[in-house]
């Protein structure tokens, strides 16, 4: 019985995906960025008709090459029947990786939207993986990632590149999410459709005309997001956690995830290393080499009571090197400018450096790096490092100050 039931369920699902495909294929398109110089596609993604028969929704990261360099690139669609045409960008939501495009002619029937079904419900993701052809991927809704900042839907299905911007539909064929990312092995992410609805709402107020200054609007979105994040972090109740002889704020927001990074005695010999790394694991995609919105910080405690002070400090000094990795290039950001001073935090002296580099195109945003090393103990060390991307410098300093004020020395 069970087996029979299971079989029939699979048959039903297959049936539904094939019937859905027939229903929506007129509303699903490939979105391609064309280099005007060669006429060839540079990046591809997927899109779907929404709201009006000439509006297409996709991901911001699909069209970002165009927004960053509209003179070099243009946007085209490719229909399931092979017809092509040009698209114009109306507006974007970089925070949720969404973009809405308008075609010069009718594209097809706009898809309906619906609320997210219950966890475990089957979803059907549509798109054009690797440009191989329009496909449907059946997977499971695993709910909103409420703790993460982008609040995406966890979709257990195999999304592939090229499917970005395609719709994820419920059984009824209504859009509940937009394909956006994958972590491999059927761990994929969808943008919740409510953010698309908000973007469409904004476009309605613009009378379906392109946003007057898209770049400024993107910068404004990033600033608002960064301010909201920094303010939220400061108003959250903070829990303190022990790292060596210090008590420090660890998980200062639900969006922040902390991992233990301690090293074993085997690796570290006479030194005891206790380390905690926290990050919001967020990357707001701006272009191939630039993403912002990331916050990571690290506390590392070193204890070497079995070593003489110069020997301990030789090791400690070597550890005092940041490993911030960022793909930002000189086209995007200035060089880091740093200021090093000594500051007393929780009765201990720290050699503390604050570095900032400013974004060239996204005015008002900076990357901020704060690194500190305790220098008031001869056989104990404590390194603190914080790296924020795409924030307002002054606002970030308020958070850093609050962090320092919450440090406590246990002895």
């Amino acid at each position, binding site marked *: 019985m069970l087996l029979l039931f299971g079989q029939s369920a699979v048959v039903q699902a297959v049936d539904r995906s094939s019937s859905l495909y027939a229903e929506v294929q007129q509303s699903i398109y490939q979105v391609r960025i064309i280099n005007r110089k060669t006429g060839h596609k540079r990046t591809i993604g997927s899109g779907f008709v929404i709201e009006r028969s000439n509006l297409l929704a996709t991901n911001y990261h699909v069209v970002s090459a165009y927004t960053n360099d509209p003179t070099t690139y243009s946007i085209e669609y490719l229909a399931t029947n092979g017809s092509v045409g040009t698209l114009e960008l109306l507006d974007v939501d970089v925070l949720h990786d969404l973009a809405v495009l308008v075609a010069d002619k009718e594209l097809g029937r706009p898809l309906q939207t619906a609320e997210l079904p219950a966890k475990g419900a089957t979803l059907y993701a549509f798109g054009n993986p690797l440009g191989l052809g329009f496909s449907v991927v059946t997977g499971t809704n695993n709910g909103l990632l409420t703790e993460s900042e982008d609040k995406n839907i966890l979709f257990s299905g195999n999304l592939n590149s090229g499917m970005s911007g395609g719709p994820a539909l419920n059984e009824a064929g209504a859009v509940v999410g937009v394909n956006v990312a994958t972590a491999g092995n059927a761990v994929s992410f969808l943008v919740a459709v409510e953010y698309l609805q908000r973007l469409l709402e904004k476009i309605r107020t613009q009378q379906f005309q392109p946003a007057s200054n898209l770049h400024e609007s993107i910068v404004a979105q990033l600033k608002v997001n960064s301010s909201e994040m920094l303010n939220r972090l400061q108003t959250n109740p903070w829990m303190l956690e022990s790292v060596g002889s210090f008590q420090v704020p660890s998980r200062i927001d639900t969006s922040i995830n902390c991992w233990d990074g301690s090293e074993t005695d085997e690796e570290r010999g006479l030194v005891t290393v206790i380390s905690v790394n926290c990050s919001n694991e967020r990357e707001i995609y701006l272009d191939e080499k630039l993403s912002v919105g990331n916050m990571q910080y690290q506390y590392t405690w070193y204890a070497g009571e079995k070593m003489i002070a110069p020997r301990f400090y030789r*090791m400690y000094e070597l550890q*005092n090197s940041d490993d911030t990795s960022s793909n930002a290039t000189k086209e995007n950001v200035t060089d880091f400018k740093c200021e090093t001073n000594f*500051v007393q935090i929780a009765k201990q002296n720290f050699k503390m450096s604050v570095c900032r580099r400013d974004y060239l195109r996204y005015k008002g945003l900076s990357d901020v790096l704060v690194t500190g090393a305790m220098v008031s103990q001869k056989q104990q060390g404590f390194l603190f490092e914080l790296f924020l991307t795409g924030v307002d410098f002054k606002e970030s300093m308020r958070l850093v100050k609050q962090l320092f004020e919450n440090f406590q020395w246990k002895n």
Partner: protein
Amino acid sequence: MEKLDACLLEIQLRPLNQYYHLTQFPVRIGRALDNDIILSDPSISAYHLEIDKTEQGLVFRNLSKENGTRLNGKALQVASLELKQPISLKLGNRRTRLLATSMQVAQASVHQCRGLLKVFCRPWYAFTLAVLTTSVFLYEAYLQSIFNKELVYYLSSVMPYLMGMIALALLIAGMSRLASQRWEFSPALGLAAFCMLTPQLLGELGRVLNYFFTANWPLNGLLLLSNFLLIPLLVYAYIRLVHHAERWPAVGVALLFSAPLLVYQAMDLTDQWTIEHEFTGQADFNRNLSAWDLRLKPTLSIDEYFIETEK
């Protein structure tokens, strides 16, 4: 005529010149064995030069059809001139001079070794410096390890440096021996020890100063100075003190011997400058830490600190 016995031919050979008293004229010089003075230099002809003495003075006659003779820098066929010494004569590629025995010679070269330079003159000092250098490397190996190790582990890690130091000393002593025909091992060991110890000490000093000034220029400056000046200065001191060279010849030799290294350092420096002007994406600030916490900058309160950074 009365000064004939006072005439002397100096053949310049390192490390000691050869001298021939010219008493009977004419004097024929060449490579053939029936000459009055036989010079077995391959650039010298079988019969190369004849010097005769007449009423008017000395007469020089070039006999060589191959490489010829130059008298006071000019090509010679026959010349007769008063003896005004010294007369320089170049036979083929061999330099010689005609001198009067009454000519004054330079004063004996006496060098006072003072301070650190004693390592070039006193074997005991050189040996002590070598031991000190080895100890510094031993201490460095100890500082750099974070594991509990037996002494033998640190000793073994120092062996390559010790080997390098001895090899360098032997190389210097060997070259020195070729030039001076004397074995001078201890100054060579002193030079080798100096070469290895100085960068180590300057590095340590630089780190202390970096921390003191909260900046990277002290160490960078010291390394730059040591890269460009250390080897030429050491070679200069060595040539002066061990080989008793005159000041300017010593400068010449020091520059000549350090030239490849100086060019290498210059190349390295230009590369560094190029890299510094490129975008790296790395934050550049002083990362030195010191257990003694000696520094110029004061410790600020959190409030003061943020007022400072807002600037």
